[in-house]
């Protein structure tokens, strides 16, 4: 995968030799990509330490490497540019994707640690987390359809392996379903996206404006992107793999899949629609319909789950629908990008937090009975994560949803915002199914692990901080 990425880069370098109008300057471009390079080196390093039989170094190295990558992203805030001849963007979306997704990967790695420690594949798992998140970052900064394809493949291949790593029947079956579904959707995507190349003569997203007046070609490519990214982001009706894969995979992997590749794909979709001619092939309406379907289907299906991981899987399908409210509005006002970024930050914190508590308590809904009495802190944290997912002030989820609804209305999709609000109320019923039994008589006290507690404590602080301090975040985005 990495080699194919490098080959692509080399190929583009060759194109420049042929006299492209854009100057390509490695000395300028590479520092812009420092965070991505740091993530890549972290992935490589984790494998190297594994091979050197130094498994204990794996976790600290990965965590520090990813934190360094986050640190390298901070100076990029406010940058609006492209690198590698317009093919990769270093802009608000892509920089904030790094600031959100790399720390989210750190939390996921910490969640995985109790599950993989002292196994012979510990370093491999960490490496896969880093590589998959690199795929998500590639999607979030894509300026070229080739990067979309590359991002989907990179994050998919890593995810398949992550789901399968326990090598038991459940995870193998889950990974198989995921692989088959992923291969088919990727093939459809690659096939249809060639229409855009055929119609515009360019793979650059910034040239998509040439699709003006070519509705069929525009529609074919749109279907390609929606299928490919819709699958990555688990948007209904391309979500079928998600509940099975999440449930078969270790909880930490489910947590990771529900956040990092999903947000990457959503941001990638936003990068694509930004450059489409206004209303080409009716994309706003199509995306709005997918949003309504995802929200409604996800919440309704979540309502009947008995397994908390499956419940959260369906809830994450619904949350993808909320994300699409921001995508619908891209290009139609200032709120769209702000809302996507704020909601992504809040969603990463609250969803990872909820999964961390699930990891501590257990997958079965019955295990949550009495949690609020047996372990009041974990119970309270779970309540905060869930009501933030509903969107109750003053938590992060509320601010994110408020911005999303505002963005949709600004773009003229009032009905979609109303559907979103009705769905928020429906989702209250979904999450109350976890909350209500938590305050009955406890059956057993959950196992406690300091690392897990620390992880959800961090997520808890972030969930509250993003809500209360929303103005600070918005100020950086304006």
């Amino acid at each position, binding site marked *: 995968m990495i080699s194919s990425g490098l080959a692509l880069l080399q190929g583009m370098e060759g194109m420049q030799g042929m006299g492209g109008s854009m100057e390509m300057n490695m000395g300028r471009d590479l520092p812009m990509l420092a965070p991505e390079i740091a993530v890549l080196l972290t992935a490589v390093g984790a494998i190297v330490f594994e091979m050197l039989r130094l498994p204990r170094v794996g976790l600290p190295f990965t965590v520090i490497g990813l934190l360094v990558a986050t640190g390298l992203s901070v100076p990029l805030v406010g940058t609006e540019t492209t690198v590698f001849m317009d093919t990769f963007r270093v802009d608000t979306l892509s920089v904030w994707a790094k600031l959100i997704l790399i720390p989210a990967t750190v939390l996921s790695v910490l969640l995985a640690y109790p599950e993989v420690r002292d196994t012979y594949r510990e370093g491999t798992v960490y490496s896969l987390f880093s590589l998959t998140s690199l795929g998500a970052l590639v999607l979030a900064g894509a300026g070229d359809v080739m990067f979309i394809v590359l991002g989907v493949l990179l994050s998919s291949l890593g995810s398949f392996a992550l789901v399968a790593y326990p090598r038991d029947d459940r995870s193998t079956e889950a990974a198989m379903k995921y692989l088959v579904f992923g291969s088919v959707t990727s093939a459809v995507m690659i096939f249809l996206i060639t229409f855009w190349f055929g119609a515009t003569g360019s793979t650059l997203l910034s040239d998509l404006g040439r699709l003006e007046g070519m509705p069929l070609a525009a529609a074919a490519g749109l279907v390609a992107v929606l299928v490919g990214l819709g699958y990555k982001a688990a948007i209904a009706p391309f979500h079928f793999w998600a509940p099975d894969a999440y449930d078969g995979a270790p909880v930490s992997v489910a947590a990771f899949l529900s956040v990092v590749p999903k947000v990457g794909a959503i941001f990638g979709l936003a990068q694509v629609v930004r450059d489409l001619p206004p209303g080409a092939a009716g994309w706003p309406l199509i995306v709005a319909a997918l949003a309504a379907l995802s929200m409604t289907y996800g919440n309704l299906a979540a309502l009947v789950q008995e397994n908390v991981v499956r419940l959260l899987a369906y809830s994450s399908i619904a949350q993808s629908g909320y994300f699409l409210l921001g995508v619908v509005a891209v290009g139609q006002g200032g709120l769209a990008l702000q809302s996507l970024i704020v909601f992504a930050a809040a969603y990463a914190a609250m969803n990872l937090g909820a999964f961390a508590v699930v990891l501590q308590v257990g997958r079965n809904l019955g295990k949550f009975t009495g949690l609020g009495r047996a372990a*009041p802190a974990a119970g309270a944290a779970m309540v905060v994560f869930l009501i933030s997912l509903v969107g*109750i*002030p*003053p938590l992060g989820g509320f*601010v994110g949803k*408020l*911005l999303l*609804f*505002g963005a949709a*209305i600004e773009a003229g999709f*009032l009905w979609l*915002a*109303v559907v979103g*609000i*009705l769905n928020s*109320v429906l989702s*209250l019923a979904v999450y109350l199914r976890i909350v209500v039994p938590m*305050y009955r008589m406890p059956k057993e006290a959950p196992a406690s692990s300091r690392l897990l507690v620390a992880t959800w404590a961090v997520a808890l602080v972030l969930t509250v901080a993003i809500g*209360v301090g*929303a*103005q600070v975040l*918005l100020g950086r985005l*304006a």
Partner: protein
Amino acid sequence: MFPVVSVTLFLPLLGAALLVALRGAPARTSHAIGISVSGLTLLGAVWMWARGAPGGGFSQVEEVAWIPSLGAAYRVGVDGISLPLVLMTAVLFFASFVFSSHVGERARSYVALFLLMETACLGVFVSLDTILFYVFFEVTLVGMYFIIAGWGYEQRQRAALTFFIYTLLGSLPLLLAILGLYLGSDPNTFDMRAYIDSPPLTGLAATLALVAMLVTFFVKTPVFPVHTWLPLAHTEAPTAGSVILAGVLLKLGTYGLIRFALQMTPDAFRDLAVVVAVFGVFSALYGAFVALGQTDLKRLVAYTSVNHMGYVVLGVAVAAATSDASTRALALDGATLQMVAHGFVTGALFLLVGMLQDRAHTREMGAFGGLLRIVPGLSWALVLAAFASLGLPGLAHFPAEFQIFLGTLDVYPLAVIVVLGLAVTAGLYLRAIGVALLGKPNEEWSGLKDLSPREVLSVGPLLFLTVLLGVAPFLALDVIHATTEALLP
């Protein structure tokens, strides 16, 4: 300046957090915390009352910016309409805590939930921001659900669920209306004062928003035909739960009717006022006649609440319909005073019926007889509260209902048939007094004990305030009137 409103508002929540932290606290400690925290909150409310609401507009405003670019902020404050309700809420919660201090079953959770409810109820009355209002409005719902489901009588699960689903679905339209107001305001804000100063919606949008608000607040009030959750919830709720439900939660509906429907969509309300008035009149008469058919004392009191709240709805409709400022102030004075009076009187009635039930384990009025000779203290208190409830002059309901009827006569002369409700309630209370309190003492109850100090302390203040409001209504009316006469152009 010391933030009295915020401190008063969040004091109960702090108490609840303290109880949650004190795992394994015995019942005595829990109740001591409950009584002292709600006592402090009452002091805070009295302090707020002492500072008053000069000028008629919102005063004692406390504001903290949250997301200025979205117009969302923490904003609290009071005016002459909310201030008496805040004081009434604090008094009722204090009385409830004193009365409940004998509850032994899971006392820590019980007290914590009631404290949470106190913050939520006060929050609804002092919120000046629609998001804040909506959150507090919903929290009251969750708190009441757990109180009924956890400490109610036989069919408590069903009653709690009916209550929850009914009012949750009922409050959805309000959310849509809030969204509409937000989008209509320019610049976009959630500040209720901005909506009140210049109503953001006009035409069809305003009518739709008004209808949405009416649905929400009618369910909460409740108004016929969406009142069906009320008798079930009341009969199954524990006594203190009923006191809060009838005394405070029903007012959230009528308060919303004034604060939102009347103040934020005044023109649309003027057009629809006659419909609202018909709902109010019908509800009042329906409540009275159904109450007449009850033999269960608690259900009887519950249905008289439908009757009394019907008068409030009528008063608000009259205020919306008229263009004459003095009539409007008259009707609104009456409606606001009626809310406060109903809080004290019905609170006392539910406490007294609860005391009877604690002793006799039945609420059937036919099972009693001659109680006046067996438990004179309790019986006379019941007589006083019943007389207040039927609107006897000199007691709290009289000045309120009198003003509402006077305003109605000006605007909708036909609606005065609602006075019939007074006659019916008088009849039903006299019948209840006759059956249960007078006559030959029933041997079965000869061992009943009269009021204990705990019971005197809880119901005494409510009866005292009932008499005080009846004799000197101007104590509350001066504050209310300053706002109602300045309300609307």
